[in-house]
């Protein structure tokens, strides 16, 4: 046993504790960390929180309301019809026709599906090749669509559907022989619009340049003179 502990009085132990017990000094970084933590963080402007809150609320409301807003559609009926017809034409350009059929054999089925009868129909010639015909549903009406391709590869879509409310816009009318269809443009496409009785007729293509329009007139003549749509029911 150590001599030191033979006489290990309280006083001796106290001295040893005060003098011999290693002391640990705080690392330098600790003081910096504490001071930094105690420093007030940069205060945000008082108006920032309400502004962000308001912006977030507006965004949420917009996200909730936008889907139920009515779609912006043209108020003018002819323009509205043309937009629908152009959409159908675009779909055909991108995806092709849904039901390819040789027209004469498909006519009874088309009449049944579309409610449009075609006592006379343009089935193509040396300039315009018939591609297909199919029923369509546009502007809440069943109708018929016939697609052609010209020798240069332009696709044309002829659409006939009941359109009692359609008024052919006079300012856009163009005299072509004895007919006065309206030439309406939409989304980079051109459409001849005319009526035969209560049937609205449209011939759509991407031919919009001055030269193309002359050719487009010729195509209108061919289709208009040889196609006779009537309401079947």
């Amino acid at each position, binding site marked *: *046993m*150590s001599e030191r*502990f033979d006489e*290990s009085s*309280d006083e001796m*132990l*106290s001295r*040893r*504790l*005060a003098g*011999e*017990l*290693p*002391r*640990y*000094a*705080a*690392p330098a970084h*600790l*003081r910096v*960390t*504490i*001071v930094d*933590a*105690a420093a*007030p963080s940069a205060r945000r402007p008082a108006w920032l929180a309400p502004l962000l809150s308001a912006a977030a609320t507006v965004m949420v409301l917009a996200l909730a309301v936008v889907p139920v807003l009515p779609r912006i559609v043209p108020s003018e009926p002819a323009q509205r019809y043309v937009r629908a017809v152009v959409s159908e034409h675009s779909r055909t350009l991108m995806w092709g026709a849904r039901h390819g059929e040789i027209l004469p054999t498909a006519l009874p089925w088309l009449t049944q599906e579309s409610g449009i009868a075609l006592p006379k129909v343009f089935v193509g010639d040396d300039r315009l090749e018939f591609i297909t015909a199919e029923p369509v549903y546009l502007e809440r009406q069943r109708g018929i669509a016939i697609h052609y391709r010209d020798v240069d590869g332009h696709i044309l879509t002829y659409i006939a559907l009941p359109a009692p409310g359609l008024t052919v816009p006079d300012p856009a009318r163009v005299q072509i022989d004895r007919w006065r269809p309206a030439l309406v443009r939409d989304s980079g496409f051109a459409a001849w619009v005319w009526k035969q009785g209560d049937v609205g007729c449209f011939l759509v293509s991407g031919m919009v340049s001055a030269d193309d329009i002359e050719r487009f007139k010729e195509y209108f003549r061919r289709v208009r003179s040889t196609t006779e749509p009537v309401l079947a029911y």
Partner: protein
Amino acid sequence: MVDPDFQRQALGHLDALYNFAMYLTRRPPDADDLVQETYLRAFRFSHRFQPGTHLRAWLFQILRNTFLTFYRVREREAPIAEEGVPEWDVPMFHHAPDDDGTAMDSHTDLERAMRRLPEEFRTVLLLAEVEGLPLEEVARVMACPVGTVKSRIFRAKERLRGLLRDYETR
């Protein structure tokens, strides 16, 4: 915003608090965390400090309370769970757990013996004998009567002497 005077005075006790924290936690990273937490609390509640009273004792009190609240619970949970000792069987003056690889190294028998003391004994010796706090201040830090402090000092020294004797005879 912390009063700069208060902050300066409080930081003057940084080394003492860190030393105390090292003997409580036995791990430098834990000591760092404990001291940081102590200062943050002290700054947050600086308005409660009564000028003229012993700032160092107040800081020691915050440090020990923080240790007891967070660190000792963490320290105790693992051994108890591993050994399956029911909670009611844990003695009030429990022995500190054995060292592991991350604990600080002991430089002397005295330090090693101190580390083996229960926290209550370590604290009372560190505050009264090492830091030289008056018994009244130690009592305030430990939230017990002065008589209890005296009794703990006596028992702590006895325990310490026994441990030192063991080391000497090895």
